[in-house]
C-alpha cells in the first residue's frame, strides 16, 4: 500500500541502492565527490563514467529520467564550458565540463534513490555531532528534505507562469542580456510570491500534525545499519582509492 504520491524526484524501483541506509549513501557520495574533484586525466574521468553507468544500471532508473532531472544542470555546465573556453584552452574547458557533468549526475542519483524524509533523517544523524556547537542539525536536514520535495512542484509552477506571461505577449527570448533579465521579472515575482505562500502553508500543515522540531520524534522505520551499508562504503572507498592512484 506504500505507493508513490508522485511528488519530489524520488523514483522508487526497490533496487539495492534504494534499500541502502541514507547515511551510507550520503557517506559514499561524499567519498565519490571528493575523489572526482581532483581527477586530472581523462582515464580517471572515464572510469568514473563507467562507475556511473553501472550505478545507474543497478538502480534500474532509466537514463531518460536522469537526463530530464539533470536538464537545469546543463545550463550551469554550458556556462562553465564557455567561461573556460574564454579564459583557457578548449581541451581544458571540455574536460572540466565533463568532470562537472559526471559529478552532477552522481549528485542527482542521491535524491532519485532516496525519499526526501529519509534523506533528512540521514543528514540529521550525520550532522548531529555539529549540534553540540550550536549548528541546527535537525532543522537544516528537514529544510533540505522539504526543498527537494518541492523542487519539481516549483518547476511546474514556473512553467505555468512562463506560459501565462507569454500568452500576455511577453517576449522572454528576445533582446540583449539586460532586456532578457528584465523580461524575466514577470516570471520571478509571481514565483517568489508562490514560494513564500507554499512555505507558509506547509509550515502550518506540519505544525497542525504535531511537528515541533526533531526532539521526541520517532520513526516508523528507524534507520538500521546493515552489512550491505558497510559494504557500499567499502566499495566507494576502494573505487575512489584505485582511481585516484591512476
Amino acid at each position, binding site marked *: 500500500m506504500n505507493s508513490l504520491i508522485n511528488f519530489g524526484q524520488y523514483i522508487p524501483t526497490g533496487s539495492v541502492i534504494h534499500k541502502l541506509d541514507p547515511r551510507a549513501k550520503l557517506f559514499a557520495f561524499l567519498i565519490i565527490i571528493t575523489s572526482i574533484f581532483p581527477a586530472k586525466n581523462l582515464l580517471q574521468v572515464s572510469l568514473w563514467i563507467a562507475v556511473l553507468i553501472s550505478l545507474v544500471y543497478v538502480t534500474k532508473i532509466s537514463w531518460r529520467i536522469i537526463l530530464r532531472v539533470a536538464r537545469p544542470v546543463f545550463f550551469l555546465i554550458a556556462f562553465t564550458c564557455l567561461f573556460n573556453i574564454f579564459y583557457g584552452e578548449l581541451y581544458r574547458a571540455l574536460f572540466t565540463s565533463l568532470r562537472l557533468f559526471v559529478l552532477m549526475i552522481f549528485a542527482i542519483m542521491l535524491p532519485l534513490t532516496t525519499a*526526501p*524524509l529519509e534523506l533528512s533523517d540521514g543528514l540529521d544523524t550525520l550532522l548531529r555531532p555539529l549540534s553540540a556547537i550550536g549548528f541546527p542539525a535537525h532543522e537544516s536536514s528537514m529544510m533540505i528534505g522539504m526543498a527537494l520535495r518541492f523542487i519539481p512542484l516549483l518547476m511546474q509552477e514556473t512553467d505555468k507562469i512562463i506560459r*501565462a506571461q507569454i*500568452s500576455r505577449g511577453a517576449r522572454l527570448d528576445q533582446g540583449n542580456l539586460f532586456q532578457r533579465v528584465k523580461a524575466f521579472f*514577470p516570471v520571478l515575482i509571481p514565483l517568489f510570491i508562490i514560494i513564500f505562500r507554499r512555505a507558509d502553508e506547509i509550515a502550518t*500543515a506540519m*505544525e497542525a500534525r504535531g511537528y*515541533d522540531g526533531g526532539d521526541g520524534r520517532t*520513526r*516508523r522505520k528507524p534507520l538500521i545499519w546493515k552489512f550491505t551499508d558497510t559494504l557500499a562504503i567499502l566499495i566507494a572507498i576502494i573505487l575512489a582509492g584505485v582511481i585516484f592512484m591512476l
Partner: protein
Amino acid sequence: MLNEKQTNRNNDIPFLEVKSISFSYDAINTGRTLTLKDVSFFVNKGERIAILGHNGSGKSTLVKILGGLVEPDKGECLVNGVKIQDLDFHELRGTIGMVFQDPENQIVAAMVEDDVAFAPENQGLPSNEIQERVDNALRRVNMSHKQDSSVQRIALAGALAAKVDCLILDEATSMLDTQGRKDIEKVLREIHAEGMTIIQVTHILERESFSDIQRVIVLSQGEIIWHGTNKEFWDKAEDLGFDLPDKEITTNPAPVPSSNVKFKIDNLSFKYNPDDINYALRNIDANIYAGQWLSIIGKTGSGKSTLVQHLNALYKIQEGNIYFDGQELAQKGEEVHTLRQRVGLVFQHPEDQLFSPTVREELAFAPKNAGFSGSELDEAILYGLECVGLDKIFLERNPIALSGGERRLVAIASVLSAKPECIVLDEPLAGLDASYERIILAMLGRLRDEGKTIITITHDLRVALKFSDRILFLMDSKKVKEGTPDELINKLRTIYPDWFSDS
C-alpha cells in the same frame, strides 16, 4: 486523546467553545480592519457543523484560531473547558486534526505510508504502534481506490493517524471534482457516525454533503450573521447570498446564432513527449463558432487545458491542423505574437501570475506587448477595467493588497486589456464564491453579446449547460460529445449521472 469518562463527567461543557474572539492582521492599527469581530459559538462532542462564508469572510483565520495555530487578539477558545493556549502542544495536536485546501501543501513525504506516519512519529510513538496507526488510518479512508481525490485522502488519513477527537476541514474538498468530493464526503459521514466531531469550513453547497451536518454557522466580513440547524439553513440560504445547487437549469443561447467558424480543429493529436505511449489529445475534431460561448468539460486530465493551449500556439501542432478564421494557425515568429493578442488566454488561478506594483501597470502589460502606446494604451487599460466592472480607483492599488476575488478580476482584465477577439478561460470560477461567480459569468455573457468568442474550461456541468451556447465534452484525451446544451442535456445525464445526482 481524552477518554470517555472524562468527557461524560464534563457533559455540560461543550467540546469546543469560542468566546467573543476578535482578530486583526494589522496589529499596529488595531481595530481598523478586523478580520474577525466578536465571534462566539460552541461545538458539542460528536457534532458535525458547517461554517459557511464567502471569500474574505475571515473563515480561514477562524480555522487557524480553532486549531490553535494563531492566537486571537481578544477573547478565547476553549477545548473541553481548557484554554487552547494552555494545552500541551502534543495533547492539542492529538485532539484536533486539520485538513487544508491544497493537498500538495500538506503532504510532507514522497510515499503514502511515510506521509501518514508523520503525525504519530511527531507524537514519539514506538515504530510498531506507528505502523498500526498508519494501517488503520489508511483503511479508514478506503485508500485502496485509485481516484482523483487520492491525495486529499492521504491528507485526511494523515490527520486521522494522530487519533484526534475532532477534525477541522478548511475548504478541504473545494479543489476536487464532483466525484472526488463525493468520495471524501462518504468517508467523513462514516467517521462522523463513529463519533468524530467535524467542523467543516466551506463555500460549496451540496445537499448530499450536508446530509449529516447538524448546525450551520454563516460568517460574513468577520462576523457571524446567521446560525441555526441544517434544515433551517436551506430555507434561508438564498437570503444569505448563497446559490442553491438544485435550481432548475435553463439554457441561455447567444442572441444571434452564428455559423461563422472561428477555429476549425481538424484531427488534432498531441503527446507531451514523442516517446510517450499515451496521447494527451487524440483525433480531436471540433468547430468553434465566432461570437459564441463554448464550454469544454471533462474530468481532470482529460486534455482540456492541453487543447486550449493549442489555440494561441503555446503548444505547437504535432498532428492534424487548426484553422483560425480559415487560415492555418500561426506557429512561429511575429505572427504568433499577433495571434496571442487576438486570442487571450486566462490560466487557472490567474491571480497567481500578477507581478506589477499597481493594477494600472498590470493592465498595461499585455497591450504594451501588443504594441499599444499613448492614448491608445490608456484607453485599453480602461477598457479592461470596465469589462470586469472595477472602479477607476483600483488603478493605483497594489494587486497583492486586494481580496482574492478582486485579484481574479484584475487578472482577467489584464488579458482583456489587449482587446482580444477570442477569450479562453481555464476554470475561471475555481475557488470563487457565489457573488464573484455571478460577476464573472455576467461579464462573459456581455462580452459574448458584443461579438467576442468565449471558450471556457469548466468541471461544473451546471454552469456549462446554463450559460454556454455549445459544449465540447472530452474524456481520456478524446472528444466524446459536442453540441448545444439542449441537445446534450439528456445525453450527458446518461453518461455522467453523478453530475446530476444533486438535482
